């Protein structure tokens, strides 16, 4: 705010003496805390990079293209886990986005007013459920159901697509994806709901006065307006799915290879770390696991940054165009 300068009359611009030492001390103390937060971020990056170096030196860019993960021969590549991560997150989006959007649309347009609060709260409570509890529920409730009902049906009806090979045992990529879908729906739904609510009433009224039905109003007046916010929410959900550990570890089957079908077992980067960080055959595997973690960090940082840009932009635009 101000800094000490010699008090000379009416010459250079000055701001006068700094307030007493308590203000300065306070400034320094909170400043240190702020610096600590930034230091934390750099420390995380630093340690991951430092520990990945042996692996990077051993495998170079081949790490990113190799599908081999063999502790016995000390050959490590990250492709199975990137594949696992992307497949599970992708299917989670495929299942979760329609559900999240549907519920957001219903709450903001069709639901009676009294429903909005409780349902909204319930959906946000879903977001608060810990990952490990979803995993536990997944093992004892979802998996049996998938194994006995859903997966055999999928095999008979959609088996021709080649996605559903092998015997369904419940613990597989598909089940893990379903759990992820359940976990990201609250995030996507909440952001979608907020962006839909931010659409100015004038837009809705314009469509309604033209004789549009409810759905047409939503489709023509609200969704396009809220589009980037909703996409931002979806990407935010994706970011969450990429890093989810416990629920996935407990349901995906933990096989270190690229899954050959949705009923196959697999492994994501997060579940790899959970399973093998402490049970590994040596420093090279440890370093490879950390390099995989570094890749996961990079992916989620990029995805989250993209999401924030989109959501931020829509909130800004929405705020400015209030009539």
């Amino acid at each position, binding site marked *: *705010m*101000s800094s000490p300068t010699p*008090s000379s*009359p*009416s*010459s*250079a*611009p*000055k*701001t*006068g*003496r700094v*307030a*007493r030492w308590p*203000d300065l001390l306070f400034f320094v103390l909170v400043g240190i805390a702020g610096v600590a937060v930034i230091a934390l971020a750099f420390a995380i990056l630093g340690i991951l990079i430092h520990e990945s170096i042996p692996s990077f030196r051993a495998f170079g860019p081949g790490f990113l293209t190799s599908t081999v993960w063999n502790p016995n021969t000390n050959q490590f590549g990250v492709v199975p886990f990137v594949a696992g991560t992307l497949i599970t997150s992708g299917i989670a989006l495929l299942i979760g986005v329609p559900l999240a959007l549907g519920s957001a649309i219903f709450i903001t347009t069709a639901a009676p007013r009294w429903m909005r609060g409780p349902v909204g709260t319930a959906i946000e409570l879903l977001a608060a459920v810990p990952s490990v509890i979803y995993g536990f529920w997944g093992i004892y409730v979802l998996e049996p159901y998938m194994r006995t009902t859903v997966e055999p049906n999928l095999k008979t009806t959609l088996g021709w697509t080649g996605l559903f090979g092998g015997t369904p045992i419940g613990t597989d990529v598909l089940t893990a994806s379903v759990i992820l879908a359940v976990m990201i729906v609250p995030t996507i739904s909440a952001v979608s709901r907020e962006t839909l609510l931010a659409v100015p009433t004038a837009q809705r009224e314009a469509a309604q006065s033209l004789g549009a039905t409810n759905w047409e109003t939503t489709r023509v007046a609200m969704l396009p307006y809220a589009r980037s916010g909703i996409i931002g929410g979806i990407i935010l959900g994706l970011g969450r799915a990429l890093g989810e550990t416990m629920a996935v570890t407990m349901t995906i089957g933990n096989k270190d290879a690229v899954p050959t079908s949705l009923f196959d077992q697999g492994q994501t980067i997060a579940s790899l770390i959970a399973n093998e960080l402490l049970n590994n055959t040596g420093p090279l595997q440890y370093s490879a696991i950390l390099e995989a973690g570094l890749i996961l960090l990079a992916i989620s940082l990029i995805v989250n940054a993209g999401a924030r840009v989109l959501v931020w932009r829509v909130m800004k635009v929405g705020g400015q165009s209030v009539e």
Partner: protein
Amino acid sequence: MGATKMKVSGLTAFYGNKPAISDISLEFPDHAVSAIIGPSGCGKSTLIRCLNRMHETAPRARVAGQVLLDGEDIYAQDPTRVRRRVGMVFQRPNPFVTMSIYNNVSVSLRFNGHHSREEIDRAVVRSLEQSALWDEVKDRIDAPAMSLSGGQQQRLCIARALAAEPEVLLMDEPCSALDPIATAKIEELVSRLKKEYTVVIVTHNMQQAARVADFTAFLYLGKLIEFGPTEQLFERPKESLTEAYITGRFG
């Protein structure tokens, strides 16, 4: 009336690199009401905020020149100390929303120095009496400040400022958010306050200046055009610009 309480000397105030007021020099007499008038954007608020060092709390704001309080440059002192001697009432009433009426008025006493409960009680009553609010709130002194009407809230803010026992009271368009009746109450109060304090009031309402102020300064585009006894400025202005403003030809 007579002695100079605050003297402004070659004052220029910047926002970033743009000067909002340039090279202003004038003297505010003690125990008098001085008004600052001028069209929107002429720098009235900037000027008054330099008098208690509030201007510099805005981002990238700077000041050049001198402001003397009783002969001493306020920019060479601890700003917190300056603000205790020079109090301010803002355009929109801003009582502390989470506090009661009593707590609002007593806040400066409770935070600055140690006072006994009796001292604080006495100060609160005195300040509320000075701002003509005591009779209306004496039965609900612990009620939330936000339960008062706009005009009452502004008088509460005046009481709060007075409780700090300043020597100068700055008022930045204190009535612009109020209805005519509340405005009249406050104008009446300002006339009484000059017995104990020096008052500087910014107003966009010329008639208000004519009603309450002993001295008036006319600002235009950041420069001081004229300053003098109110009667003289309004009836026999020295500058043609002043005359144009007063007769309503612009602003």
